[in-house]
């Protein structure tokens, strides 16, 4: 008995838009959310993907706002949007059949900074009663579970930028093991001052101040990456159940996932992309397809020459030189760490739904032998896409998404 997992709801809180419709429209229009970063005088990074239109009070009640960080606000909002998109009300479900899995890399940054500041300025009694639940990496999963009365196995995975796909893989496992629906994804809010200081030492960070020049993966003169905030939450359901629910949109099936680690060096990734290629191949094998079946790749797009070279090499290897269309729509958002993989999965699911690939922006001179999608591309019959994500330190993850087909 093979229980299949499908995506039935998408909620985004991203530099490209709040809610799937806005995000999709902005992405197709090539409207980037990368903007100058305030207070960046002492920082190497001058721009970042930002969600300026996000008013947390519209999405989260005051009682909960004071307990939580911006990263959790985004996760709660994205969850609400995903549930609405899926027309799923968890209160109408048996609570033990539902789960929450989030990826989280840096936790409640602004919240934690504020409380440590209070400790050092005013002493222990100034520290909030909510520090113990606001900052830690499990806060978003816990709050989502409580808000929506979800009592099945819940999880939190940390694998840097690969986390969004690792969480999706866990959702697939939970569905295979009997779960009915999983709220899954990731958000990140890493643009508060101290979080930026923590990122400042990364050699692959772009120093470019022009928002349209700073992050250009696969460009011949790529200069590094730009961080960003936000992400996506998805509703993943068991396939038969999804089809039995009226008014459900089945965007895509999670056909196969795989993760590997480079295991070479704590910071620098290897030039050969061998383990990245293996993650892609294993995901394809688990999906029961081969490289020829893949219509498009949502690439990780490190944005630095070494990381881009490794990924381009892995794609060439896996596709045996075939020029598969490759897109990096995160050129409009920056790299959202745990939120990035989740947002790319959302993007890929929407692409399958619409038969249309969102573009890679700002890359006018590709430096690798790839079919880089630099304008929105009509892909009628788009059926199978490969989504790739990597995390600092050597994490590689890949997911194969397939359009629902009714034979």
């Amino acid at each position, binding site marked *: 008995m093979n229980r299949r997992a499908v995506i039935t709801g998408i909620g985004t809180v991203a530099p490209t838009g709040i809610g799937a419709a806005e995000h999709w429209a902005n992405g197709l229009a090539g409207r980037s959310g990368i903007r100058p970063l305030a*207070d960046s005088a*002492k920082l190497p990074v001058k721009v970042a993907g930002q969600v300026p239109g996000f008013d947390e009070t519209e999405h989260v009640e005051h009682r909960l706002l004071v307990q939580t960080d911006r990263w959790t606000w985004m996760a709660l909002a994205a969850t609400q949007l995903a549930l609405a998109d899926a027309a799923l009300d968890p209160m109408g479900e048996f*609570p*033990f059949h539902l789960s929450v899995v989030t990826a*989280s*890399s*840096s*936790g409640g940054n602004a919240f934690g*900074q504020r*409380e*440590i*500041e209070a*400790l*050092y*300025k005013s002493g*222990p009694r100034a*520290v909030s009663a909510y520090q*113990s*639940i606001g*900052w*830690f*990496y*499990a806060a978003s*999963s*816990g*709050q989502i579970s409580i808000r*929506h*009365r*979800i*009592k*099945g*196995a*819940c*999880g*939190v*995975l*940390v*694998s*840097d930028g690969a986390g969004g796909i*690792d969480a999706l893989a866990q959702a697939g496992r939970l569905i*295979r093991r009997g779960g009915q629906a999983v709220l899954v994804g990731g958000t990140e809010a*890493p643009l508060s*001052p*101290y979080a*930026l*200081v*923590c990122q*400042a*030492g990364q050699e692959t960070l772009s120093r470019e101040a022009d928002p349209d020049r700073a992050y250009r993966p696969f460009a011949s003169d790529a200069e590094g990456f730009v961080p960003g905030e936000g992400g996506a939450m998805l509703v993943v359901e068991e396939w038969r159940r999804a089809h039995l629910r009226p008014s459900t949109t089945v965007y895509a099936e999670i056909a196969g996932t795989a*993760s*590997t*680690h*480079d*295991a070479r060096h*704590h*910071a620098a990734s290897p030039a050969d992309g061998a383990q990245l290629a293996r993650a892609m191949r294993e995901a394809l094998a688990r999906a029961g397809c081969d490289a020829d079946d893949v219509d498009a790749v949502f690439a990780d797009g490190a944005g630095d020459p070494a990381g881009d070279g490794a990924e381009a090499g892995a794609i060439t290897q896996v596709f045996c030189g075939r020029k598969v269309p490759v897109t990096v729509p995160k050129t409009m958002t920056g790299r959202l760490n745990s939120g990035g993989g989740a947002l790319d999965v959302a993007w890929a699911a929407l692409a399958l739904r619409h038969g249309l690939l969102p573009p890679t922006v700002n890359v006018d001179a590709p430096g690798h032998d790839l079919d880089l999608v630099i304008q929105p591309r009509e892909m009628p019959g788009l059926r199978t896409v490969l989504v790739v994500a990597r995390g*600092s*330190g*050597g*994490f590689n993850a890949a997911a194969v998404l397939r359009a629902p087909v009714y034979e």
Partner: protein
Amino acid sequence: MSARRSVVTGIGVIAPGGGNREEFWQRITSGKPAIRRISTFDPEPFRSQIAAECDFEPSAYGLTPQEIRRLDRFVLMAMACADEAYADSGLEGVDLERMGVSLGSAVGATIRLEEEYVVASDGGRHWVTDPTHVRPFLYQALVPSSAATELAVRFHAQGPAAVVSTGCTSGIDAIGHAHTLIQEGEADVVIAGASDAPVSPITVACFDAIKATTPRNTDPEQASRPFDADRQGFVLGEGAAVLIVEELEHALAREARIYCEITGFAARANAFHMTGLRPDGFELGEAIMDAMDQARLSPGELGYISAHGSGTKQNDRHETAAYKRALGPAAYDVPISSIKSVIGHSLGAIGSIEMAACALAIERGVVPPTANLTTPDPECDLDYTPGSARETTVRHALSAGSGFGGFQSAMVFSHPEAA
């Protein structure tokens, strides 16, 4: 359910009062608490001023000066434990692509993040902090996944790697994740465990703020009192444990020493409150029943329960109710204990340390005691093994965990000949 089974073939532990597996076992079976006044900063301004600290000197474990500079204490402890576990397993010539990493941690590199914040903000004076004075590699403190990376690089493990961070159930959940990866065929060997080093001013302050930790500062060794009527909260601790979790046939083929089989793992959420627990223990009871079902066990077959037993009134009653709900009358017969009475509560790490205790209890036929249980709470009326260790046959051991966020987890280990 699944044809692929997973077993434990190596164990490494660093715990308060025990710098390796054997010292740890001696410590918990002696029932002598390793809890003292906090030594790494002046605890005077804090409500709770004691902790279960490890005398962990990373250079003594062969960690290099560069590693010590680069990495937070929780990563260094994980590496030292993993070295012990890997050596214990006798693994060699492993297919590296089939070896993964699953490390639990609740609060990651909190010590390093706080220390460097103090410098970057000049003692909390500036909201917009200055990167010029912080240590290199601070990004590795921001993201706890760096610990999984360090283990993957150290053992050349090219399979799936991740940190599991579900608060205080991280240690059970990380081993559970390893078990799942093996069942699903995604790996044959997983370096699995958990590490936390949370004894820092901000962590002590955050638990002070909700009065979760004990203010019993004058007699540290008697401060951690799970199930005792005079308990006043938990004692913060630190530590790590790493298990080598291996697919059964893989272990048999190389004639490995098998401590136990992982026969059940289940997780639930209470969807109730981030820190509060319902007194009926319903969801934890559900997790325990699910784990027992997977192990095909009837309640009477359990030989030991390593309790969450944090020593808060709320937890101890919640947990007691969960055991009664899940096990029925048999709950009164099975020896239960909380090693937190001896080594404190090391947040995400403790779940893996308690699983190590279960594996050793099965191997050695000894149940460690609950220290300081002198005046039982009348509402906690099970057999918590007070005072001293007990010799008994343990074919199956259960451990339960409960954490902030509402996470509830249970895992069953079984003797290799009993599974």
